[in-house]
């Protein structure tokens, strides 16, 4: 069961996180040389028009007032309007979020499916050839940039072998999964590498624990010991690792979506940068940061539920 004190403490920790996210996303757009308005309009408007529009948007107010206006707008769900396509930012993000979420979920699942069995092989054949081969391969995978892995997979499996589509997102759910398989695999490589390394160490530690000796002494079947005792306990430390790595995954989605031309929020981010669409950049930074901090929260709570010692 969850320790209530821990949950409350962990929820309180979210407050500085959210304040930080708000400050950063507020400041980012203010870092622009000049103001967002003239950055958008260029030379086409007069000074009087700029002043009028600034007053309308509250840009003539002191910084602190502007910040509170910004927070008020964000809390009421108003992220502004895209300069380029002229629709509310939150609706734009809502439209582009599903591909990214499916992509992230699929990569997480693929990463776990790859990492768990290999971690077992590596841990059980510790310091032998298969262990070295698995660890070496993942080390190379970790040293490879995401876009490079994507480009190679795309060339081999889509362009040459024609097993997968060259890009896009598809229409039905099955089609989405088919289209997003290679991109997910691309992202899963680094996740699997981090997870594998951590799980291998954890499994080696658990194998030396007394309760595993006891389970063996009881005469339990090796398979039962592995799944019920070893895997379960080794996985706990990896759950904590999932939070940060899924955060990295969402970042990696920005790159993967560009390589595979997937219409997700990552692609939207890059398009907005090229189009100088600052409200969208701001809104995206804000929502991605919130999503990641919620994933962190979830993994922390799950870990505490699995291992009461964490909550102490």
């Amino acid at each position: 069961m969850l320790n209530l004190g821990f949950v409350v403490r962990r929820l309180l920790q979210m407050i500085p996180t959210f304040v930080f996210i708000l400050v950063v996303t507020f400041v980012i757009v203010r870092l622009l040389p000049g103001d967002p308005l003239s950055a958008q309009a260029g030379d086409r408007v007069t000074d009087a028009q700029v002043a009028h529009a600034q007053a309308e948007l509250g840009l003539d107010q002191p910084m602190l007032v502007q910040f509170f206006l910004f927070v008020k707008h964000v809390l009421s769900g108003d992220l502004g309007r895209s300069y380029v396509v002229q629709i509310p930012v939150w609706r734009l993000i809502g439209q582009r979020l599903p591909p990214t979420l499916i992509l992230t979920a699929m990569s997480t699942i693929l990463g776990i499916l790859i990492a768990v069995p290999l971690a077992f092989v590596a841990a059980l054949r510790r310091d032998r050839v298969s262990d070295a081969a698995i660890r070496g391969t993942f080390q190379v995978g970790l040293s490879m940039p995401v876009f490079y892995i994507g480009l190679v997979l795309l060339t081999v499996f889509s362009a040459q072998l024609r097993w997968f589509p060259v890009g896009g997102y598809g229409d039905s759910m099955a089609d989405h999964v088919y289209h997003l398989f290679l991109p997910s695999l691309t992202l899963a490589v680094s996740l699997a590498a981090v997870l594998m390394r951590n799980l291998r160490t954890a499994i080696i530690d658990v194998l030396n624990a007394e309760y595993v000796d006891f389970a063996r002494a009881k005469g339990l079947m090796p398979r039962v010991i592995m799944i019920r005792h070893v895997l379960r306990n080794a996985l706990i430390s990896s759950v904590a690792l999932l939070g940060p790595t899924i955060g990295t995954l969402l970042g990696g989605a920005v790159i993967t979506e560009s390589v595979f031309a997937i219409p997700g929020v990552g692609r939207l981010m890059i398009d907005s940068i090229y189009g100088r669409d600052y409200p969208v950049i701001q809104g995206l930074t804000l929502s991605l940061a919130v999503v990641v901090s919620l994933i962190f929260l979830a993994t922390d709570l799950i870990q505490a539920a699995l291992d009461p010692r964490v909550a102490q």
Partner: protein
Amino acid sequence: MTAAEDILSRPAVRRRRFGLSNLRGRISWTFVAGFLILLASLVLAIAPGLIAPYKPAAFDYKAILKPPSLAHPFGSDNFGRDILSRTIWAYRIDLQIAFFGTLFPVVFGTFVGAMVGYYGGWLETIFGRVVDAVITFPFLVLVIAIVAVLGPGLFNLYIAVSIVGWIFYARLIAAEIKVQKRLDYAAAGRVMGYSTARIILRHLLPNAITAALIYWMTDMALCILLGSSLGYLGLGAQPPTAEWGVLIADGKNYMSTAWWISIFPGVAIVITGLGFSLLGDGLSDMLRPKR
């Protein structure tokens, strides 16, 4: 030798059990391998003109999209530029990214970490909150957003990476200093009347810096990955600068017909990344006391 002579011939200061002074006699093969890879990389970065057969931007319209051959060992691109030469010249840019992208974080993070670890108290409380807040921020998204606003280019990339990167060093250093400052030798330093600055710099820091030093190696590899990713997206080094991410982007439309344009720069990234990892692992084996 008499006992007195024996004692006198010993060094006045005993070698510490932890830290940088513990290097003697335990050179691991991972350290040597990583060191050699990075040494070779450094030579390529310092003197690419002596090693690369062509100039990085030399067009040759008689050798367009040529596969690897004796004249062009890594092939040539759609402008007839030699891929081997461009990959070699890119060492200069990418190692620069690794160094300058981590320089401020290492220095500033070490300073903040030492302060937080030594003084603790409210400084530690504030620092804890900052860490909580920053760590949940998706790093790549933040860097891309900052670069988006400041504009593409390497200098803005350094700014973006530095804003967040110092936190990780500060956290590692603070945790170690907190342990070290309670040990006897720190108390001895205070009894001797040494200044706080001297105790921190000469005594605590050399013993507390191991973890941060090892992380620095990983961080430099990560920085190259980040720099080349931004270069690939058009937000980092700008073409025609020879940077590995830019080179890979140059070749992405030719992957099916002229794979060599993108593949070889990628291999350079992987080898350099492995060099940093091996060096980091080696340092870790050599510097950390065995459990």
